[in-house]
């Protein structure tokens, strides 16, 4: 039976936000379920805070805040009921961040879960995952079902938790949110890890689009590294360049330039490049 992921090796550093990126079915949730001890790997190991998740799963979950994708909660119970149950299971009498997170998200903690919309359930589940201030956060699609205000609030909370040393593994297929909060990104395709790098580094591996206005005719850039001329009109030249730029700068040094525009690719373009081009690590 296919287990969903294969040969995935990665680490998340303390205080880091790592984005787990990939379309539906890429294996993000499977990887998270291995980390949380729901699935047993046929080979390999997973450790959280130095604890083997196969043998020390309860301890791992004691020190972790977990948000499942599209969380399901007990109908007939309120958010407060569920928080009390969660705190009892953790051996805690109170959760230090409850008030702040409930207020920031506007979580309807008094409402019966049965009467909550998808977004309201998501907010309650986020409170349950975050309120006890865990050392590690494992969040599967944290902005799923949230309105724009809720999305912004949770991304700010994630950013703030990382800034005080909490470690965050965030799974998402929404590139803008990954770009906004993640230090590094792991891209999964068909259960395999195809890229693991900082957002900036991933971008640099892709072309940048450069537009230069010269005084007089543009220099001849053909044959220089990975430069692809896109468009030329009189003394204005647009081209794409990938990788090391020193050779290009050398060629441009002799030319007199009046204006330069360099457009960095978005993470979305990087992501699509990996998927369309089928580029392997």
């Amino acid at each position, binding site marked *: 039976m296919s287990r969903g992921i294969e040969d995935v090796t990665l680490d998340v550093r303390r205080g880091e936000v790592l984005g787990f990126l990939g379309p539906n079915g890429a294996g993000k*949730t499977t990887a998270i*379920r291995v980390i*949380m*001890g*729901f*699935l*047993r790997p046929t080979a390999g190991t997973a450790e959280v805070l130095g604890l083997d998740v196969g043998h020390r*799963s*309860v*301890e791992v*979950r*004691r020190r972790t805040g*977990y948000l*499942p*994708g*599209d*969380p*399901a*909660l*007990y109908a*007939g119970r309120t958010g407060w009921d*569920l928080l009390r*149950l*969660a705190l*009892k*299971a*953790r*051996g805690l009498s109170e959760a230090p961040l409850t008030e702040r997170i409930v207020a920031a998200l506007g979580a309807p903690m008094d409402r019966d879960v049965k009467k909550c919309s998808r977004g309201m359930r998501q907010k309650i*589940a986020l409170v*349950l*995952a975050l309120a006890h201030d865990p050392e590690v956060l494992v969040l599967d699609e944290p902005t799923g079902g949230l309105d724009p205000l809720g999305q912004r609030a949770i991304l700010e909370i994630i950013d703030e938790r990382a800034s005080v040393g909490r470690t965050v593994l965030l799974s998402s297929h929404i590139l803008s949110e990954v770009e906004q909060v993640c230090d590094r990104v792991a891209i999964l395709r068909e259960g395999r890890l195809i890229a693991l790098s900082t957002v900036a580094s991933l971008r640099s591996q892709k072309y940048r689009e450069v537009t230069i206005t010269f005084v007089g005719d543009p220099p001849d850039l053909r044959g220089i590294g990975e430069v692809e001329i896109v468009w030329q009109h009189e003394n204005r030249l647009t081209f794409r360049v990938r990788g090391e730029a020193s050779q290009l700068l050398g060629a441009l040094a002799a030319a007199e330039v009046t204006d330069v525009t360099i457009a960095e690719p978005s993470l979305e373009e990087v992501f699509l490049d990996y998927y369309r081009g089928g580029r392997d690590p």
Partner: protein
Amino acid sequence: MIGLVLDLATRSRVALCWWLLGILSMACYVVAVYDSIGSLQDLRNLFEQYPESIREMFGEVDVGTMDGWIHLELLSWIPLVLGMYGGIFAAGTISRESEQRTVDFILGLPISRTQFIGSRLIVGLANIGTICAAIFLLLVVGVLLTGHTPSADRYALALLNAFLLGAALFSGYVLIASFTDEQSRVTGIAIGVTLVLYIATAALGAAEAPDWLKWLSPFEHYHSASIMSGRGVPILPQVALLVGTIMASAAALYSYNRRDIAV
């Protein structure tokens, strides 16, 4: 673990109350009508004319006595109800958690799978025990109110036997639920198996099947007829039910600890 048990007990209490309402209503009816029809000679004659397989199902009792009447009309089928309750409870608290994905919430907390299944076993057994205890109390009080002398020791023994049988069936259904994620499937299996075992036990008895074959059915180890007729209760079957409960519970814990919990 205590929190988990209390939470589940709280969540299951409304359903338990409905089960108790139904069972105790039937028990009230049985006790209340005894004076009007229980002592009729025609009823004895009718029972004796039943085919052996049917009488085997109810057991050899004198239906003209209060104890025989209570056995025939109530205690003979109580394990059937306990078995069904156990199956529905196991399906609703284990398979349903997987099917509705609430298991992600509960096992995302620092709760081991052993604690998860253990809490289901404890609350399920406690609820089955509560049903048996409530029937006992109702029988004692009800029989007293109708002007008869209750055979409290016989009720207690018969209901203890019923509890052990219900526990064995329940732990078997917990085992099935531990590897089945569909609530409706586990419910169907539990009700079907309970009915088949109940009927098959009577049929095997009537057909004079070999003892080893009859021993395979948990219902064979239920001796309410013997207890209510004052013939006592054999100990070995009770031990067999207890051992069956322990083995099925251990197998359920092992199975649930070994499996993947997928979405």
